[in-house]
């Protein structure tokens, strides 16, 4: 197992290297640069600025300088967000995104699995059909529709139930107060819940037809016990493979949700950095995302091996 982990870790290094190289040169292939703006800088000023950031050197040399700094753990300064290094920006943005994402994913997993199992146990009955149609809605309605609607209902109109004011803040991080997290988490979790429910229903229906479930029934076990100890682990397998990449995507932030709710997450840096040609910021975010994907896929594989003892990690 240690050997497997070590090999996966070593195997990730060349992958990361290729990703960094590709991202570096593709960024540079895009026309324009970080200091192009409406109002052109005087040539000498521009030359000085570029020299300060080593942008006047040949591209190959810049690449080597970047790699050298990276090896020391330095992601470089942000070109646009003056006085901030990329490490600082990611360091403040990632925890926000991660907290939102993890909460949303946990909610989606619990609720989605529960709904999926219920649907599978009532296959082709009304419970099944209603869960699946709601799930289909959840997948098809984009977050930029659900977010404003929820904002309107809970934030602008406000809801009062039995004398309790149920209105919620519709924006801002507020130091991570839970009331501020409710709406963004729900918006993030909705489509994921739907996907998880559909996947769980599909694989659970399949597993419930397996011969060993028949054996478990022949032993006289009650339905709940059969689902929990005989079916769930096998049914969770496809879900785990999906969760790795999905979690990476949601952890690195969702631009739409962060923009709508005005949250200081990492998602916006992707778009801002790319639009502004903030080379170091984009590369930093790409590295962060790629590392997360690699790490989470590794975790997913370990999880699969734990769920199914027949899988041998080699």
């Amino acid at each position, binding site marked *: 197992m240690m050997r497997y982990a070590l090999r996966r870790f070593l195997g990730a290094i060349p992958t990361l290297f290729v990703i960094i190289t590709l991202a570096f040169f593709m960024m540079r292939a895009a026309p324009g640069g970080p200091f192009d703006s409406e109002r052109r800088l005087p040539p000498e000023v521009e030359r000085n600025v570029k020299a300060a950031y080593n942008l006047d050197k040949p591209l190959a040399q810049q690449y080597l300088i970047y790699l050298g700094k990276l090896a020391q753990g330095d992601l470089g300064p942000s070109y646009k967000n003056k006085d901030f290094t990329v490490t600082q920006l990611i360091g403040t943005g990632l925890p926000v995104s991660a907290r939102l994402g993890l909460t949303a994913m946990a909610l989606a997993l619990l609720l989605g699995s529960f709904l999926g199992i219920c649907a599978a146990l009532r296959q082709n009955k009304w419970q099944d059909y209603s869960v699946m149609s709601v799930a289909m809605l959840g997948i098809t309605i984009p977050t930029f529709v659900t977010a404003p609607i929820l904002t309107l209902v809970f934030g602008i109109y406000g809801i009062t139930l039995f004398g309790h004011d149920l209105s919620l803040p519709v924006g801002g991080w507020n130091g991570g107060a839970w009331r501020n997290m409710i709406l963004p988490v729900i918006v993030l979790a909705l489509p994921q819940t739907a996907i998880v429910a559909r996947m769980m229903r599909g694989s659970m229906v399949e597993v419930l037809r397996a011969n*060993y479930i*028949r*054996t478990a029934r022949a*032993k006289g076990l009650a339905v709940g016990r059969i689902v929990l100890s005989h079916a769930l*682990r*096998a049914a969770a397998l496809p879900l785990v493979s999906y969760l790795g990449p999905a979690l990476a995507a949601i952890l690195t932030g969702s631009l739409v949700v962060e923009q709508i709710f005005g949250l200081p997450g990492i998602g916006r840096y992707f778009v801002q950095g790319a639009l502004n040609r903030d080379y170091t910021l984009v590369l930093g975010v790409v590295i962060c995302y790629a590392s997360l994907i690699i790490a989470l896929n590794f975790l997913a594989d370990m999880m699969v091996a734990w769920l*199914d003892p027949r899988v041998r990690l080699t």
Partner: protein
Amino acid sequence: MSALLEITDFNVHFALADGDVHAVKNASLTIQEGECLGVVGESGSGKSQLFLAAFGLLAANGRATGSVKYRGEEILGASPERLNTLRGSGVTMIFQDPLTSLTPHLKVGAQITEALMLHRKISRAEAQVRARDMLDYVRIPESARRLRQYPHELSGGMRQRVMIAMATITGPDLIIADEPTTALDVTVQAQILEILRALKNEKQTAIAMVSHDMGVIAGLADRVQVMRHGEIVESGNADEIFYAPKHDYTRLLLAAIPKADETPPPATAIGAPLLAVEELKVSFPVKDKGLFGKTRQLRAVDGISFSLHQGETLGVVGESGCGKSTLARAVLQLLPKSQGRVVWLGRDLDAHADIRKLREEFQIVFQDPLASLDPRMPIGLSIAEPLKALEPHLPRETVRGRARAIMQRVGLDPAWINRYPHELSGGQNQRVGLARAMIVGPKMLVCDEAVSALDVSIQAQIVELIRDLQKETGLALIFISHDLSVVRRLSHRVMVLYLGRVVELAPSAMLYTNPRHPYTRALLSAVLSPDPRAERAKKRELLTGDLPSPLDPRAQLTFLKSRLGEPDYRPKLEQVATGHWVAEHD
């Protein structure tokens, strides 16, 4: 006193997309305490559904009507809670295919103790002790260690023993054994039946033995019921059914079982052999577990030599893992060999630049007929494909004509040319497999367990077809099977394999009447015959336990203990009579 189980006017319907299927029709049966009832029928006869439905294990689209009385209590339509207390406690079940019938991610111990803790309300520690005793009872060695293993870490025979342990541990009154030995090797089958016999005799457990094989139930059943198309067509004492069958279908089932005296006469070997295999070896690298696991060679085929003449059938028998399929594939160059020579018509196959051209001359038919066909290809195309690939210049019309002709020949309606494999039965699909192999007019055909997955009566038809094809075309056959009786029906000579080596090679008549090697004898004594009196009286030379691992270099010396000191020694073949070769043994 009322019967243990009494089923009357029992019907099972399934609602399918294309209509209602009446799977069990007006079935009635009784099982007394401590009695063994054999239920025989082919696949699809409703024999399994009958018992599943009786205890509330029907699929969601199934519906059961009638009456099922357990000790006088009506249980059909009883509450799930009542059924749950009955299942696993009073009535337990053993299913076919123990690998898929055990939960893959739970340890064997947890699965065995589960029902015990649920129904008998005892502590986990006590349940563990009982589970160990139970594993000892079903003769699983190293029981303490086995409890901590997962099902996939056990052999097929051991898994089925775990199933039996699971079904026996709560001390049920009735065990329903649904094809408990199907797909197991003959020697393992004999061991499993021995355990079931012990359960019946020592613990007075009633057994409902469901099987398609008359031989399996012959030695165990007190009474027999024969099912066909959902109906019970004949029932009676075992002796009546076996020795004086009244219904035509029962007679047909009995006739389909290969008889002991059916052996084709030895073929006259004329001229040079078609195929000569010399010291063939195939090994696979196997990696040990752990950080510094070294790679060892698993010698699947470990030096096998034989020859085959035109029109001759060589039977190859042995248990799973003996290398018979690997041998077939290596001979046909479908697998790379490690050492040795395969000579085809006097020429070393290695010397041929393009082996693909030669494929026209030797073909193979595989075991699982459905899985071996492309599910998305109409059978006509599957049949014609080898011809199109090997003789691309043939005009379309000729190919189509020959496909139709060969379909006709193997007993398929040429009008089915556009049907898909899933629309055909197992026997029909195997006919497709045969047609696919025969369309190019091969000189040699390898049948790798070609009839093993088929019902007995279908098996007999396919064997007959193969024999006719051989008569017409002078085909040489290599017929691989774990079933000694089927091999006997067809083969001129028989080769017995044990862990990748030949232990005995002899003309059929000689091998079956005068087996010399202890392994051959054990195999033969494990063969079941549809003769209850003989089966009950039979003293078996049972091999104990499982096959040793082929990775163990000393495994080859199981029958030559005196040479155990030299682990690299390989038993030599000695000729004991003309054409009768036996490996050295103690």
